[in-house]
């Protein structure tokens, strides 16, 4: 069986925020259709990796490269990355008073379509798409005309992220701690939404602290991030092993190696 084409290749990526080096040499290859889980203790650099891939400007890349669809991802502005099919589901979705969900989502979708040489979506088609994808995450339609994330509960915000993802139909999704703050029912709904978007082409990076989410979104690969490096990679069973042993075992091994 021939391997699928590479979608994203991260080579020796270093990044810092202010004066603190957080990513210290990440290597990772993601092929089309794959789901990769990134796990690790607090402060290991998981969210930093997600932010650097999405183009958050507070993070300074100090070394290495990221090739996405054969292009230099780090050269692209955040909007260009999104237009090329990268989607970051935020750990803390931002409230934007005065901008309605519908207006925002239509602007985003049309910006992506324009980038891909497509016409603006017609209103009827847009409404149909929105209805369909809201149903996917069991989101209340009344949220559509409200301001982006304003007054949403933690669970509603996370559902809304997955809803946006479903509408924008990215090639690479990065879910940053999407499970944080979700109860078990919301977790199932969100996971179900993510799973329905999985296909041959679409790849995901699932950043999480807990194995729990991976019961629902079953990854092809699991990577353990520790002190800014991937220290272990394996299949989905690695997550279960971590769950059983905790991150302490990783820390011990790493400290033993270091000394």
């Amino acid at each position, binding site marked *: 069986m021939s391997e699928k084409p590479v979608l994203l290749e991260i080579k020796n990526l270093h990044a810092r925020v202010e004066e603190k080096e957080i990513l210290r040499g990440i290597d990772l290859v993601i092929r089309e259709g794959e789901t990769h889980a990134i796990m690790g203790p607090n402060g290991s650099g998981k969210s930093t990796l997600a932010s650097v891939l999405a183009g958050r400007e507070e993070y300074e890349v100090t070394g290495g490269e990221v090739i996405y669809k054969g292009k230099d991802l780090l050269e692209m502005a*955040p909007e260009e*990355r*999104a237009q090329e099919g990268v989607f970051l589901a935020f750990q803390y979705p931002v409230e934007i008073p005065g901008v309605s969900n519908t207006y*925002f989502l239509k*602007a985003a979708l049309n910006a992506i379509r324009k980038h891909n040489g497509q016409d603006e979506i017609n209103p009827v088609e847009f409404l149909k798409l929105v209805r369909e994808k809201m149903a996917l995450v069991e989101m209340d339609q009344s949220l559509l005309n409200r301001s982006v994330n304003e007054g949403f509960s933690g669970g509603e915000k996370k559902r809304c992220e997955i809803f946006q993802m479903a509408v924008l139909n990215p090639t690479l999704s990065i879910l940053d701690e999407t499970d944080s703050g979700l109860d078990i029912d919301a977790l199932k709904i969100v996971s179900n939404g993510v799973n329905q978007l999985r296909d041959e082409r679409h790849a995901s990076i699932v950043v999480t602290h807990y194995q729990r989410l991976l019961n629902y979104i079953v990854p092809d690969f699991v990577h353990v991030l520790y002190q800014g490096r991937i220290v272990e990679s394996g299949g989905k069973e690695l997550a279960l092993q971590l769950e059983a042993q905790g991150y302490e075992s990783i820390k011990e091994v790493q400290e033993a190696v270091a000394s």
Partner: protein
Amino acid sequence: MSTSTLSALALRDPRKEKLQERTREAKVRYLMAFDSGQSRREREPEWLQARRASAIAHFEHNGFPTVRDEDWKYTDITSAANLICEPQFGLPTARDEKLESSEIQQFLLNTQNALRLVFVNGQLAPHLSTLDDLPKGVSLLGMRDAIQSHGALLQAHLGRYAEADANAFVALNTALFTDGAFIHLRKNAAPAAPIHLLYVNTAPLTAAKVRNLVILEAGAKAKVVESYVSLTDDSYLTNVVTEIVAERDANLDHYKEQLESDSAYHIATTQIKADDEANVQSHTFTFGGAISRHDANAVMNGEHIEVTLNGLYLAGGSQLMDNHTVMDHAKPNCHSFEEYVGVLDGKAVGVFNGKIFVRPDAQKTDAKQSNRALLLSRDAEVNTKPQLEIFADDVKCTHGATIGELDDEALFYLRARGVNKNDARDMLIYAFAHAVLENVSIPELREQLENQLMQRLRH
């Protein structure tokens, strides 16, 4: 030599001193112009002559304000005062009969049957105005004509509310106004269509002194829009005083949009007097002008009155926009709401001063004031000052002032979804400013203002 004298010498600015000297000359020329208009005024009723004489006496005594006056601390009007020292100053500008309706089409409210008065360089243009077939109980005409036809009403109200002793521009307006709008609604009159007052400037160095009077008798209901626009990029001065009287249970939605040329000076006072159970909303939209000053003052002279004073200003380049407001709670059980929102870019300067007076009698007052400013550049500046003077003990008064920049997190969120940086910026600024437009009750006006906002945000 003492230190203070030394620093005073060091701060001497010859250019400024020259301007101040010229401002003193301007005052003299104003007084001379008033004298030269004597024969024209002699044809006016005696009560009006007396009010004009009293106003010019106040001006003679007080002169133009300077930045040493607390109320004009951030707004140096020396250039505006000097501008009006032009030869035609003091005389009514010739009516521009040539102006065609097609030239003002872009400024008209896109509503059916809007009642309209159009003024060109301060003078009524009858051929562009709706003067016939007015709805029942509605009088709508030019002030100059109203002096002849509605003398008793004018005598009862004109100049009774806007204080010539407190504001030099009100004094000059009262002393020298030549025209403006007169609106009178009889008891319970409620025309369905909005009344649109359009003031068009067509020439440089004009100094229009517009005097408006709006009287709503008991139970009357109206929507009134004042629009100040220009067909040129020239420098000129518009000096407006609008007095509004809302009698018992009257209901007024008042809008003022200032779309003057970016070289113009616009100095205006809106003075509201409300009686028992009246409801007055006054919204000010400031987009144009080099220097713009608007005083919105409301006196609640009865019980169970509700007054709203809202404002939106959008300043760029080196524009200065100054909003002063006074909410005067004179009697118990009144509610007032106030929200001023500003967006400032370039080297623009914004000023907001919001006074709330609660008089000793005014128990159960509920007053809310908020002002928010968004600074888009390092060089933009806003000076904000809420000023609450409360002399009653059973009242609710809240005020809040925020000054901020665009939220980087929100900007990143929008960009991370594919929205281009400039569009994301515009979206956030628009959302910030739009809150004030949501209260505009005339859909066509709201749409026009939304378009203005959108256009002015374009880079």
